[in-house]
């Protein structure tokens, strides 16, 4: 019997719901032809907590801790997205110092989030060392957060009208120490990975996301910029006080997994630059505009969005003038970014799917909400 006569047939593989490289509870039903992927069907919703419904049953201030749970790797940014929307709805002015503190925390959290991504992405591809390196630096950021708000994962730091706590006096020297060593630490990660032949072999030309597909699926964040689109909401809409800082938007060229990796690595350096400028220019003064506990924003609706570490995070809040939102719709980056996986994952090997999934930086609680 020759090879031609051999009968082959497609078969199905379940990847997940509990799989170490889906970073959350996601089930991918994959149709395989030998080692090649022919079709991917993502099944999500395992972490659905109906946070939007919870939002309708809580007062505006009570909802802030829930936003932490939408994206627990970048809780500060999730807080930021919500408070900006609520403040715009109610026309609340935020003190200058609070805006600076928010930016410092949001950018530090962006670095921490990218470090978690780097660590897990590398470990998915079999490189264990970057995991230890990245968590070492993440620890320094978590220490800064812990001394400010007492929490290490879900911070509940920002509130409507400002921030909940001022930074302690040991914060600034610690932060400056971190900013001093961090660029050289990023050099270390890059030494380990960027031009590593094994890493290049695993990521170059893998999971190419074209600009057109990215637009059609509203992909945002570093995954979009990896495809060569210079789009960052911090620049395009400059919410908060981002227009005061000088930073670049790194972009990729091919849109493959390696480009997305490069964009995130360079973004960490840019975020460190923003934190440096913010801590240098940190003004004194109040950290909070007093907003009553039973705060009633006027009737109306609002749509705002921010650039979270994974991309666009938007809130559409409808108010009927009572203490609770009438409707709250949360748009998260991973929800849209995950939809391109069935497009860009096709005709790759199953081992490459792990690299593609990792390079998109999906976080499942954000998809399911």
């Amino acid at each position, binding site marked *: 019997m020759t090879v031609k006569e051999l009968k082959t047939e497609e078969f199905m593989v379940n990847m997940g719901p509990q799989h170490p490289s889906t970073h959350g509870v996601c089930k991918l039903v994959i149709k395989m032809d030998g080692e090649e992927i022919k079709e991917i069907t993502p099944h*999500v*919703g395992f972490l*659905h907590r*109906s946070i*939007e*419904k919870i939002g*309708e049953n809580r007062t505006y201030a009570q909802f802030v801790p829930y936003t932490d749970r939408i994206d627990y790797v970048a809780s500060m940014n999730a807080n930021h997205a919500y408070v900006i929307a609520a403040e*715009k*709805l109610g026309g609340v002015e935020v003190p200058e110092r609070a805006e600076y503190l928010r930016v410092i925390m949001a950018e530090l959290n962006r670095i921490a989030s990218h470090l978690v991504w780097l660590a897990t992405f590398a470990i998915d591809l079999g490189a264990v060392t970057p995991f230890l390196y990245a968590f070492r630096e993440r620890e320094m950021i978590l220490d800064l957060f812990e001394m400010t708000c007492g929490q290490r994962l879900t911070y509940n730091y920002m509130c409507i009208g400002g921030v909940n706590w001022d930074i302690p006096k040991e914060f600034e020297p610690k932060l400056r120490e971190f900013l001093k060593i961090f660029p050289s630490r990023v050099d270390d990660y890059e030494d380990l990975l960027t031009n590593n032949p094994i890493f290049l072999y695993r990521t170059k030309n893998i999971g190419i996301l074209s600009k057109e597909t990215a*637009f*059609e*699926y*509203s992909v945002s964040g570093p995954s979009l910029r990896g495809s060569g*689109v210079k*789009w960052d909401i911090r620049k*395009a*809409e400059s919410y908060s006080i981002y227009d005061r800082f000088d930073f670049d938007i790194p972009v990729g060229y091919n849109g493959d997994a390696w480009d997305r990796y490069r964009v995130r690595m360079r973004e960490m350096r840019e975020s460190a630059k923003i934190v440096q400028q913010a801590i240098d220019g940190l003004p004194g003064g109040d950290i909070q505009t007093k907003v009553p506990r039973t705060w009633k924003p006027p009737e*109306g*609706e*609002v*749509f*705002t*969005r921010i650039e979270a570490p994974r991309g*666009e995070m*938007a809130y*559409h809040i*409808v108010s009927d003038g009572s203490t609770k939102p*009438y*409707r709250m*719709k949360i*748009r998260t980056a991973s*929800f*849209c970014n995950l*939809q391109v996986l069935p497009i860009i994952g096709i005709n790759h090997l199953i081992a490459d799917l792990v690299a593609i999934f990792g390079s998109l930086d999906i976080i499942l609680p954000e998809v*399911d909400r």
Partner: protein
Amino acid sequence: MDSEGLLKYITEEYKDKIIDSGIVGGVATIEVKPGDWESIAEYLKGDMETRFLSVSNYGAVDYREKLGGYQLVITLFSYEFNHKLTMKTLLPAEGEECPEIKTLSAVWPVADWFERETAELFGIVFVGHPDPRHLMLDEDWDGEYPMRRGWSGRDFITKPDK
């Protein structure tokens, strides 16, 4: 274009299809009839002056008590021009009725999951949707629409026997 300019252009270009327009929270907003939902979406995507290639947000609001139906709200945006537009439509519905509307997933593929989510949580039927399975909820969840106002998760909590 800024919000005013964009709104002026759209209301002039599509004036026979727009029933209401204005600027809500800094975003240009138009309201169209449910029958024009898909066709105007196609126009807005293809129009070289607007180029709404992407969807920022897409969901529904339960306005049965106030306006007698569900309002679909879609926020479009353009990377090229850096402008955004909110488009709304009111689907009349009473009680437990499930209204129908044409799907937008042929215009923007990303609308696929947004519509699957809205369909199961609000009970809105998207006609012509390529994959109308549940997204968030369990496969055999049926007949209950959690995001409708008045639905409470408390009814589903099983109390321990005393």
